[in-house]
């Protein structure tokens, strides 16, 4: 049988954004695969060098569309590290709540979104509907549903009011009550088992060699989570577990995301209880109006655990009112480029969207 070249993407229901894979197939089996990013390249790193430190906050949530808050958090923490700025304690707790809410929203979309490539079409409806409840919280908090621009340099933009705290408590109770339904509908479903169990296995050595982080690595049995290994904010003051699995297949990766939702709910509840009261939620990095503020010379790399793995910002300042250089480490860079080339050959055509969905290949953060 001859080799045929097939194109996966740039548009496909099984992934976020536009990304293309050139597959050389024989029958249904992929012989060679070549990733082709660049459809969403918007030149963020160059754009950031040409804007003021504070105006970048409006730009960077666009780097990763499904989970935008991690960008603001990483950037703000990087600048604070260079400037040695003390952030108010309440602001740090609020940041933690926002990041965990974003993680739940992203996991709900991922758990629902797996229905797209495998053909289980109730799941996306449920996932999107419950994610909307979290977007309601973000709307009340920041005025925006998707790009919040809420975490700023030196703290957060506005204080958390008692009404929003109440809303978060209620939404967490609601999402917790929904989880058994998800378990029954999605994770006990035969379609999901037959399509995902034992497929696309990644061993621990392969994952570590490739540089995969997040659920892709934890599905191989190691407890490597940046929140535990290198705690930022107050993750060392809350009690939570990092779920792991030993199979390393596509099913355990999706199931781990689902098992992380109750842990995030646990963190949010502890944060709401431990958070000190007060009005001070941000401090300026230097004197003057926001556009003239300068950051002292220096460089720093800050990474956090996003829903997809290690996400980092490398920030360089030359002591002026604009960043000298900002580099972004997208969490899906290794599995989206090297992983496709190395580990897709040998699998079947219908497994390609499952790789992109379960390894969380997010095209906008690869392209930037």
């Amino acid at each position, binding site marked *: 049988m001859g080799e045929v070249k097939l194109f996966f993407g740039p548009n496909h229901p099984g992934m976020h954004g536009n990304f293309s894979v050139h597959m050389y197939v024989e029958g249904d089996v992929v012989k060679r695969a070549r990733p082709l*990013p*660049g459809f969403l*390249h918007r*030149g963020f*790193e*160059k754009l950031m060098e*040409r804007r003021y430190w504070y105006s970048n906050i409006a730009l960077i949530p666009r780097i990763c569309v499904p989970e935008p808050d991690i960008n603001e958090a990483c950037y703000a923490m990087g600048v604070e*590290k260079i400037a040695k700025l003390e952030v108010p304690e309440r602001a740090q707790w609020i940041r933690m709540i926002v990041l965990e809410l974003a993680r739940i929203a992203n996991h709900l979309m991922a758990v629902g979104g797996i229905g797209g490539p495998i053909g289980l079409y109730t799941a996306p409806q449920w996932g999107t509907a419950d994610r909307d409840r979290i977007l309601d919280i973000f709307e009340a908090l920041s005025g925006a549903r998707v790009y919040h621009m809420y975490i700023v340099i030196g703290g957060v933009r506005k204080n958390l009011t008692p009404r929003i705290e109440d809303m978060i408590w209620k939404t967490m109770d609601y999402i917790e009550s929904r989880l058994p339904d998800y378990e029954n509908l999605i994770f006990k479903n035969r379609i999901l088992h037959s399509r995902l169990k034992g497929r696309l296995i990644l061993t621990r050595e392969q994952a*570590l*060699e*490739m*540089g995969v*982080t997040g659920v892709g690595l934890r599905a191989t049995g*190691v407890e*490597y989570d940046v929140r535990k*290994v*290198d*705690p930022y904010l107050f993750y060392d003051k809350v009690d939570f577990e990092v779920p792991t699995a030993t199979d390393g297949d596509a099913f355990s990766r999706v199931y781990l995301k689902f098992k992380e939702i109750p842990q995030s709910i646990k963190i949010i509840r502890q944060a709401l209880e431990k958070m000190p009261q007060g009005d001070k939620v941000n401090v300026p990095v230097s004197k003057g109006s926001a556009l003239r503020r300068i950051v002292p010379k*220096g*460089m*720093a*790399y800050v*990474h956090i655990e996003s829903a997809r793995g*290690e996400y*980092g910002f*490398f920030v*360089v300042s030359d002591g002026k009112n604009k960043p*000298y*250089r900002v*580099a972004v*480490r997208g969490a899906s*860079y*290794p599995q989206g*480029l*090297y992983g496709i080339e*190395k580990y897709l050959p040998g699998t079947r055509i219908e497994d390609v969207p499952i790789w992109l969905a379960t390894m969380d290949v997010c095209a906008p953060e690869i*392209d930037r």
Partner: protein
Amino acid sequence: MTNSMSNLVKILESFNPFVEEIDEKEIKITVSPDKVVAVLETLKANGYSHLSLMTCVDWIDDNQLELVYILFSWEDGGKFLVSTRIDRSNPKFVTVKELWPVARFYEREIHEFFGVEFEGNDDMKPLFLELWDERPPLRKDFDPRDYSRKKFPDREYEKDVIKEAKIFRGEING
């Protein structure tokens, strides 16, 4: 600096590094270009086996490019920023794709955005840009506004609003 990190810094002293402490768990090590691979190998053998990021900074005033390798240890949670400076007018460096296979793509990206040649890495096709015809875009002397003005010039046209309105009302035929 944590204990294990200061022990590692002691091991690295033979490479004559310039050590800078950014944070308790983040240390920047600047070495000369010929010692970078040896430093990276030493760090990788001592637990710093995760390449978080490989990137480049353009110091145009010094006529130098700075290559930065960020290594992370999953065991003790520390970060090492291994940095070196190379000549900007003819930037050449060696590949580290044997140490970290994913570095191949980082090198391709740096080649595309900064114009650095990596010896030993033969796959240097453009990764993100298509039909690029200018200098590497993340260099400081590249001005995106000038480029887009040159590449996509403003079109000459004058809109005759009154005539359009008359056509719209049916007073004249367009």
